[in-house]
């Protein structure tokens, strides 16, 4: 205990502090000016993000229930960053929303849950973090209370996530039964590869797969993405996924080191299914959020491709890609959020002729989509390349070949959007939209990030360094 207690958990403390400040403001009820509150909140989040850079130490707390190191701190800060960007982009939506503060409280609570999940040293902590992130998220999905789709999405999410966590818990109980421990530090030595343990691995994997939208556990994704408010969709597709990937990298892979073959084979099947099915569904989507849901499913397949190799380099690639993915996806979502809030249009066809009326936003979409498709000179190219290189290091060229060919398919649908925005004529295009400072800032950060992240190898080298510490 002592000062260490605060320093090691600084991210969590900071979040809790923000939540409490907001709660007090809410309870007090005197401040009604959303614009000012939003500015305040965003400043708080920005400070929170900056805090993530200072005094990152490694250590354990609560009898190894909670552990942290500079890599974990970095991962958390990625989430902080993504949340900040999402918050900036939500400005248009929230500036007149009467439950603005609740939104932030719920959002930050889920983020807190993810932090605990990432830092967990024990299944119990992990489970708590997972549920802490899942339950408020369901409420957030339903945040557009008066929209039918929003509540349907929330229902699907809450029921299925309860179901998924039930199955995962069953797996966890079996692992407890076979080893007598829930501690991540002790478990690897105890996992020997008995049938029951394979079963637990599969059950636990399904829990992760559900959260990550791995095919065939992905079916909720598109519906929820479509129904949820844009800001939440962005959050789901970026932050929630990134958190699970971090846990997968730092926890699950080492945990089941004794079952490498099964682990790899499970991933092998999942990767192929995820990439192919994600792409096949993405091709035929009309709603842009739904489209992004499937495209993000395919992206997850690529991330898993790197994770399947299981080396420091491949994990570096995965995390590097997640950063790029965050920047690119949020670039698109920023524009979509704006358009959705200003005009209520969410269909791909609505974007016809968008470039004529909103050239700058058109380029943002194009650049972000190119990054998602892995087209140079965007960072997405580097991200994808490293993922595939990582996948190839395992020597399975079938997997790499499928992934590479699916990049072509994915290019098709990304280009289709680009075509819609740039080429297709439209009698009634979306009117020119004025962007606010927050959005400009967020998109600016994303675009600069997309352009320079790839060229400067610094970020990649830094992540790699963190893995080798």
């Amino acid at each position, binding site marked *: 205990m002592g000062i260490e207690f605060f320093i090691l958990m600084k991210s969590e403390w900071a979040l809790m502090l923000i939540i409490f400040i907001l709660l007090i403001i809410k309870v007090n009820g005197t401040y009604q000016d959303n614009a000012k509150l939003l500015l305040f909140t965003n400043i708080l989040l920005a400070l929170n993000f900056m805090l993530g850079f200072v005094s990152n130490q490694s250590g354990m707390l609560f009898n190894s229930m909670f552990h942290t190191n500079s890599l974990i701190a970095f991962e958390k800060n990625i989430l902080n960053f993504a949340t900040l960007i999402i918050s900036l982009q939500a400005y248009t939506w929230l500036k007149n929303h009467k439950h603005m503060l609740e939104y932030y409280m719920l959002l930050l609570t889920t983020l807190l849950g993810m932090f605990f999940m990432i830092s967990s040293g024990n299944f*119990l902590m992990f489970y708590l973090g997972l549920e802490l992130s899942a339950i408020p998220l369901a409420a957030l999905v339903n945040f557009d209370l008066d929209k039918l789709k929003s*509540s*349907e999405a929330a229902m699907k999410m*809450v029921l299925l996530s309860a*179901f998924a966590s039930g199955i995962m818990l069953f797996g966890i109980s079996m692992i407890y039964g076979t080893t007598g421990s829930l501690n991540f530090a002790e478990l690897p030595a105890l996992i020997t590869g008995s049938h029951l343990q394979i079963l637990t691995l599969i059950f636990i994997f399904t829990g992760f797969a559900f959260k990550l939208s791995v095919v065939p556990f992905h079916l909720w994704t598109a519906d929820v993405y479509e129904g949820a408010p844009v800001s939440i969709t962005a959050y789901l597709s970026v932050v929630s996924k990134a958190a699970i990937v971090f846990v997968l990298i730092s926890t699950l892979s080492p945990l089941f080191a004794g079952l490498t073959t099964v682990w790899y084979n499970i991933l092998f099947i999942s990767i192929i299914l995820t990439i192919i099915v994600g792409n096949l569904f993405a091709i035929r989507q009309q709603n842009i959020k739904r489209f992004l849901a499937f495209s993000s499913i395919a992206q997850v397949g690529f991330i898993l491709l790197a994770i399947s190799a299981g080396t420091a380099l491949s994990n570096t690639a995965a995390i590097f890609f997640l950063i790029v993915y965050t920047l690119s996806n949020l670039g698109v979502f920023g524009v979509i959020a704006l358009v959705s809030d200003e005009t209520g249009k969410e269909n791909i066809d609505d974007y016809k002729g968008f470039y004529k009326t909103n050239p700058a936003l058109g380029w943002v979409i194009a650049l972000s989509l190119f990054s998602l498709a892995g087209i140079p000179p965007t960072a997405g190219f580097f991200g994808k390349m490293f993922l595939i290189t990582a996948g190839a290091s395992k020597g399975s060229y079938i997997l790499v070949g499928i992934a590479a060919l699916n990049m072509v398919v994915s290019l098709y649908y990304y280009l289709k959007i680009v075509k819609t925005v740039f080429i297709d004529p439209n009698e009634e295009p979306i009117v020119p939209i004025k962007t606010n400072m927050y959005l400009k800032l967020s998109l600016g950060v994303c675009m600069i990030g997309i352009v320079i992240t790839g060229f400067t190898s610094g970020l990649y080298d830094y992540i790699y360094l963190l893995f080798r510490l």
Partner: protein
Amino acid sequence: MNEIGLEHLLIVSTCLFFIGIYGFLTRRNMITMLMSVELILNSVNINFIAFNKYLFPDKLDGVFFTVFIITIAAAEAAVAIAIIINLYRHYKSIDVNDAEKMRF
């Protein structure tokens, strides 16, 4: 053989698990589905308690886990029911098959 052993408990929990699954997959009523999930969670609880008592009695990991599961299940149910109520406002129904507006 009169003593109730680990196997019996595991059989019970496994049955409970599958009953829960079955219920979740077949019942149309959302509340019932939620209850089925509770059954699954309870089977997990039984597992944890049984393992703790029979196999690893010197620590209380399993028991603690169970306590947390129960608590979280309550929270989850609360949020889920809130969502279902909100859904009912739109659909005037809590039949799960009615809520299929978003698909394909």
